[in-house]
């Protein structure tokens, strides 16, 4: 402990780098708990409405582009891998490798956002943004053959419930995207720290806790993808 007290990265309130690293890591974990609760409110809302309006949610879900969603899932999982490799490189003090992995993580994150905006654009063109200009065609799948199309009032009700799905879709994926943007910003700062040589094999906790954040944002998507894109696929 006495040897490291003069490390330039040691803040005045701590006795040692180990204590500092433990404190900042715990801080990030506590922050992620708040994030779980933040998204938790949305997931609870989703669960309630999905339980009430399963047909509308399935119908609306079929309008989402599963292919793009799946590609995005793969992109994000890969970015988690490169993030983990970045942390590993930081622990070993490999500055170049760290910078490369951070950059790749950022590029993958940006790719995710690019694909997401293509999806948003499609939804905009199709008038699937909730609000006064919302439009939705109820497609009766041929597999439903025997079922009557139902009364007009039921169709109108279904369309209303579909708007709830799309409201949740945009807020959930939108907030996730905001977190991605913040994540890319954090990575930019980390890249700068790595470039400056602040990150060493003695002091790498900034990379470690940024990694925790990045993985968390990925995990949110791992839940969003099936909940939003894959509803009732097996039925058709």
């Amino acid at each position, binding site marked *: 402990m006495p040897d490291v007290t003069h490390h330039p990265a040691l*803040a*005045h*309130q*701590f006795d040692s780098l180990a*204590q500092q690293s*433990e*404190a*900042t890591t*715990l*801080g990030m974990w*506590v*922050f992620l*708990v*708040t*994030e779980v*609760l*933040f*998204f*938790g*409110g*949305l997931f*609870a*809302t989703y669960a*309630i*409405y999905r339980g*009430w*309006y399963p047909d509308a949610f399935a119908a609306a879900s079929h309008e989402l582009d599963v292919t793009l969603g799946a590609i995005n899932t793969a992109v994000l999982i890969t970015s988690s891998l490169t993030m983990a490799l970045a942390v590993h490189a930081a622990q070993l003090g490999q500055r170049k490798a760290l910078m490369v992995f951070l950059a790749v993580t950022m590029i993958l994150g940006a790719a995710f956002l690019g694909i997401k905006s293509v999806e948003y654009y499609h939804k905009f063109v199709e008038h699937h943004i*909730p*609000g*006064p200009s919302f439009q939705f065609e109820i497609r009766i799948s041929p597999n439903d053959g025997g079922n009557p199309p139902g009364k007009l009032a039921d169709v109108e*009700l279904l369309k*209303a*419930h579909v*708007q*709830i799905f799309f*409201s*949740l879709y*945009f*807020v959930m994926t939108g907030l996730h995207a905001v977190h991605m943007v913040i994540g890319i910003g954090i990575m930019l700062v980390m890249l700068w720290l790595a470039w400056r040589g602040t990150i060493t094999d003695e002091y790498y906790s900034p990379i470690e806790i940024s990694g925790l954040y990045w993985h968390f944002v990925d995990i949110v998507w791992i839940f969003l993808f099936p909940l939003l894109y894959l509803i009732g696929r097996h039925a058709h």
Partner: protein
Amino acid sequence: MSTGTVFMPPRHYLNDGYGIRSWLLTRDHKRIALLYLAAVTLFFFVGGAFAVLIRLELATPAGDFVSDETYNKLFTMHGVMMVFFFLIPSIPATLGNFLVPIMIGAKDLALPKLNLASWYIYILGGLFTLYALIAGGVDTGWTFYTPFSTVSSTTNVIPTALGIFITGFSSILTGLNFIVTIHRMRAPGMTWFRMPLFLWSMYATSLIMVLGTPVLAITILLVAVERLFHFGFFDPRLGGDPVLFQHLFWFYSHPAVYIMVLPSMGVVSELVAAFCRKQVFGYGFVAFASVAIAVLGFLVWGHHMFVAGQSVYSALIFSALSFLVAIPSAVKVFNWTATMYRGSVSWQTPMLYAIGFIGLFTIGGLTGLFLASVGLDVHVTDTYFIIAHFHYIMVGGTLMGYLGGLHYWWPKISGRLYNEFLAKLSAGIIFLGFNLTFFPQFILGYLGMPRRYHAYPPEFQVLNVLSSAGASILGVGYLIPMLYLMWSLRYGKLAGSNPWGAVGLEWTTTSPPPTENFAESPVVTWDAYDYQTTVTVES
């Protein structure tokens, strides 16, 4: 009083830099505490001004002072200012910020930059809300119930909602900082069960801040998105459920009551021990009661919705769970009383507030049980009974604890003593004014006077006039401390390190403390409130 010479230390946190930058860019938890103190005091007086206008209107049965729309805005802004901008940050962000590091023997909070950031976030949220106020106010009530807040109201819902959303993050960051600090920054020997009970209550409060506030944030965000972009989350026209909003809102806002009152309970534990010269009776029970209140507080939100279309079964379960909160609360009240029993009680100002707290909190808590009973609650829902109940908790509880704590630690914060006579006088005025204001409201509510109306039947006038008279006494009671505390900053007698002869790490350092809190990092070898073995100082 200590017999040693009383002196002002040559170097302390207040004279460690004088410029405006040394304050606005400080990372010292003690200076940030004072920044918060100034800000919450401002919001307290803004919120108080609305209360004055409300009580003026209610002095007569006719709605003759303000219009009904204006009245709606008055009680909304009163609630928003007091709940989100005064009560929630009051003790944690001021006394908590000042004391948490000192009480555990640390140099600062674990994350000082985040601490300063939380103050700026608080101010930013406050500015949004003040803007909403200047732009014409908001009339939804502090609860923002949908669909009124999302569809019908034509007032400034969005800026107010944004203000609350932003301010929420300041309380998340404060809570996060306290949790990390208490886990990782305790001085050698300062084990969990040697910590002063104030820290246990700060820890429990922080848990609620960290777990509850994000849910409020997302709920407010959904309201804003629904209002701005006509999305549908709670809109019944789309099959949305307004009651879902209430569930999400109270999931935070009931625990928020404990964000307000738990810190006060922590203060009272300190005060009772210090002014009875005894270890708090049943330390472990009081400590775990704080945690129990924090946990149970998350399971009772449904008691706000007994008449909101919730099923009878869930109402009964929420009712039973609400009764459970009474157990840890009562444990605390009994343990404080048991601490006083055969203690050598000295009746100084902070102790007056502590005793005021115990009495008023007991009334507030017991009437809470009325409201947790499904049948009785239906009778008094949305009446002045509710208003009286939660003001006994929030004003009688939180504010008494806050003022008691402020008086107790003021010599430590400022290094000077205030005028004890004026302080005792105003404590008495506040106690009297408070009861005169709010006790008649219990009766009014029980007789059926509804809340949130600017006019009422003439037979309620006598009780309303009593309440308004009490409010003006209460107002005077709040102004006097403001004056003598400011006065003491310059002219007060020097306090010395330990004016109360109390134990606790904060009394071992100078008043005011140096920037790094202790000349040498302390090593703790004694239990909290160890008056039997530690105190040798003659009083």
